[in-house]
């Protein structure tokens, strides 16, 4: 065997001029570890919840109601949720009435923007799959009181989806077109968040081999990885492109993207943008919104994007993106406090038990 040749000796030197593992990335690791550290309260709460769950399963509780609600979820042992979420409403005339689907109320506003009363829309729950780690909190959090107002027309086209994180028990609320179904939802290894929905009437090419046929989709992403955040800030906030490239991160360019409602706060700590991506001959094919924060305790990039064919969902997309803007992303929901054993409700703890 030949000994080291001259060219091979050069491999002793570093491959890259600069280190790409930044202090921000180290901070992300530390923050992620801090987030995953189980508190004493959550350990006791989990023990209490598991014991109560066992008792209720033996008793038989509300198993029928639970199975009706979970029928459409079909969450199996695959790495990611794969079955569509069925939110079809009530049963046929003459049969027993279908169990009431959960709903969430929003302030009702008229066309002049004046609010009075409330309007309810269906609420579905999706459990995110964890890329690593084990579930630590299976309690579905309570959806807080909504402050984002909807008109009656808008409400008819929407559903609310609560994505539950089984690692820390928190959740995210998104508005989604009512008929659309979940494709996948996950929490990545570094805490990144993702959930995808598809219009079952226009799913496009499921293999994604045909870029000309993406179908109608909604995707939501949150990322905390330093390089990822910087690259996306540079992509979705054109004034920050040079800054992102100076950090050494590849910035994308999408031909045909129009940015509107672009603003950042004083100091550039946070920013929001709306964008529409048009393609020749097809009109607007993507409508999206992006938010970033570079605050030391909240370094993140969030994006919600809808790919559309035609104009049927234009108004619905606008409401969904305005909800994103109002909440600077999906509406974050705090984890429920662990409840005493004898007051844990059937409807919450049983539903997400696989």
């Amino acid at each position: 065997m030949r000994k080291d040749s001259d060219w091979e000796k050069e491999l002793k030197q570093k491959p890259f001029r600069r280190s790409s593992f930044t202090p921000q990335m180290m901070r992300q690791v530390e923050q992620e570890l801090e987030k995953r550290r189980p508190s004493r309260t959550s350990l006791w709460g989990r023990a209490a919840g598991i014991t109560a769950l066992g008792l209720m399963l033996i008793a038989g509780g509300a198993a029928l109601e639970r199975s009706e609600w979970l029928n459409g979820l079909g969450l199996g042992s695959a790495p990611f949720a794969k079955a569509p979420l069925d939110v079809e409403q009530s049963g046929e005339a003459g049969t027993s009435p279908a169990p009431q689907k959960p709903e969430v109320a929003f302030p009702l506003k008229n066309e002049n923007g004046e609010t009075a009363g409330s309007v309810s829309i269906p609420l579905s729950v999706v459990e995110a799959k964890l890329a690593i780690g084990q579930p630590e909190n299976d309690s579905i959090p309570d959806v807080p009181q909504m402050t984002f107002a909807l008109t009656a027309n808008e409400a008819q086209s929407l559903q609310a989806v609560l994505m539950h994180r089984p690692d820390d028990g928190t959740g995210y609320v998104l508005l989604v077109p009512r008929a659309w179904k979940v494709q996948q939802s996950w929490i990545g290894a570094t805490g990144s968040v993702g959930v995808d929905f598809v219009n079952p009437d226009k799913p496009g090419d499921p293999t994604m081999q045909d870029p000309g046929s993406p179908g109608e989709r909604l995707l939501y992403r949150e990322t905390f990885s330093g390089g990822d955040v910087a690259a996306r800030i540079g992509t979705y906030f054109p004034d920050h492109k040079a800054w992102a490239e100076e950090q050494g991160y590849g910035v994308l360019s999408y031909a045909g993207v129009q940015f509107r409602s672009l603003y950042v706060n004083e100091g550039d700590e946070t920013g929001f943008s709306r964008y529409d991506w048009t393609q020749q001959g097809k009109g607007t094919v993507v409508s999206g919104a992006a938010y970033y924060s570079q605050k030391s305790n909240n370094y993140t990039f969030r994006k919600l994007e809808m790919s559309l064919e035609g104009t049927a969902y234009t108004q619905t997309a606008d409401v969904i993106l305005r909800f994103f803007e109002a909440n600077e992303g999906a509406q974050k929901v705090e984890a429920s406090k662990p409840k005493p054993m004898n007051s844990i409700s059937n409807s919450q703890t049983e539903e997400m038990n696989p």
Partner: protein
Amino acid sequence: MAQDSIETAAMNEGDLRSIMERYGEDVWNYLYIMTRKHELADDLTQETFIRAHRHLGSYRGEASMKTWLLRIARNRWYSYRRLAFVRKVTLPGHLPEPQSWESAEETFLNDELASEVWRIVMRLPLKYREILMLRAHYELSMEELAHALNISLSAAKTRLQRARRQAAELWEKEREGRG
């Protein structure tokens, strides 16, 4: 290595930070050479240290800290590859990625690669890139190589020989092209 034995003590916040400062660049470089994707290398590097923090109890000091971390990094990469295959075949994606993703990586390589030899390495197939980097850059012994790659010593020697031969051929072609 004597210095590495210091790090076998209980890993608290300060230790984790010092280990990341010391080995973060090595782990990232390894993962970038393997993945050829900047953001994926970011994610997998962070995942490597998260996992290392959790499993420090199993680190017995038989291999150097660097070798141990590279082994975790390797496992993370191969786990990702397996799941990526599942995602690709079972789940529809969303928007098509524009071609500029690839050009962003090319820009990074053009700007940051320290030498032409590393450019040659980046063109090799994955298993040859990996073994050359681990041997020539991280200076793993043949026994450490075989253990890290989970292959026999003779298989490691054969693979290294083939990797060197292919790299040498590419290097010669590169020099002829310039000459």
